[in-house]
């Protein structure tokens, strides 16, 4: 019997798709819209930025996202202090509240510590996570693959901890699957439904499949689709990889063995074994 499962719940949100995709770095808004569609995602991330009040003429992303279809997940990308991240989170909440989008009560918290690697600042992230959780936010927390920081964030009230596979936008895939496995084990110990989302670093579909095979509950990615040669086709690949990886995880992989084990029966075979191989 195929193992069926309940949909993923993160904070107060139920997600039909386990793929969360970003909306940045596309060549055009139309390409973004079509890629989101092809990915099958029902949750998409957005950033909060100053409106270009005096040099307008551009398009607004909200004209290209169906707010009845997608739950928006506003992020605090680009913030380097807890104080700035908290401000960005509150501004994002206000926009989503007035839009009537269910994403108003959650945030993807990202507090960076280094502009070259885009690695997170762990102390500022923990501080912001606690403050936002206390303020009623469901905090989905971007972090490194450090198991200790992941535990601190869960203790600080994160609705989901989101360890990076590798640096944001690097496309290096999962550099330390052992750490991710330890994070999954620690955070889900006695709390198996606690959602752990692999965020950042995905380069191609096999990285997504691997994240799910390790036991990740969801994958969040952006650049791997937006900067693929054909973003729409890559979005479709990511959708299938997520389904394949999750199914493989639920189905349970076979253990790795040093030696081969034949798939065909040995009985009745017409065979000679010239080098003295034993049955």
């Amino acid at each position, binding site marked *: 019997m195929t193992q069926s499962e309940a949909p993923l719940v993160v904070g107060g949100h139920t997600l039909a798709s386990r793929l969360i995709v*970003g*909306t*940045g*770095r*596309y060549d055009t808004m139309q390409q*973004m819209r079509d890629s989101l569609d092809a990915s099958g995602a029902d949750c998409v*991330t*957005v*950033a*909060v*930025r*100053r*409106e270009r*009040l*005096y040099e*307008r003429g551009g398009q*607004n*992303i*909200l004209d290209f996202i169906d707010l009845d279809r997608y739950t*928006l997940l*506003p*992020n605090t*990308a680009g913030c380097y202090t807890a104080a700035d991240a908290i*401000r960005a989170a*509150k*501004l*994002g909440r*206000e*926009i989503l509240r*007035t*839009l009537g989008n269910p994403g108003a009560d959650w945030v993807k918290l990202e507090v960076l510590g280094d502009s070259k690697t885009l690695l997170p600042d762990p102390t500022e992230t923990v501080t912001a996570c606690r403050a936002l959780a206390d303020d009623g936010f469901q905090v989905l927390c971007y972090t490194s693959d450090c198991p200790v920081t992941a535990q601190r964030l869960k203790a600080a009230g994160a609705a989901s901890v989101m360890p990076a596979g590798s640096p*944001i*936008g690097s496309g290096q895939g999962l550099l330390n699957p052992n750490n991710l496995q330890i994070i999954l084990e620690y955070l889900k110990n006695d709390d198996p439904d606690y959602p752990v989302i692999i965020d*950042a670093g995905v380069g191609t579909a096999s990285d997504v499949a691997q994240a799910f095979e390790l036991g990740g509950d969801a994958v*969040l*990615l*952006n*650049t791997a689709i937006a900067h693929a040669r054909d973003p729409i086709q890559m979005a479709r690949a990511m959708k299938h990889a997520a389904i394949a990886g999750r199914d493989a995880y639920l189905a349970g992989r076979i253990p790795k063995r040093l030696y081969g084990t034949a798939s065909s029966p040995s009985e009745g075979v017409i065979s000679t074994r010239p080098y003295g191989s034993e049955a």
Partner: protein
Amino acid sequence: MISITVNGRDVNIEHPMSVRELLETVEVPPNYLAVEVNAEVVAREAYGEQMVNEGDDVEVVTLVGGG
């Protein structure tokens, strides 16, 4: 004229005015925006009452593509 800061730029306006009045000069649907005055978010319902006075620091933000 009074001087305020909007999104980091120095701006002169005729007189103290409400956030709603200030936003009338912007060609963006108001529900695409959020506003801070002196680092405090102004709820959209309060745009009419919240005044912008000399020296105030106003931020007007929207949503953009991001990951």
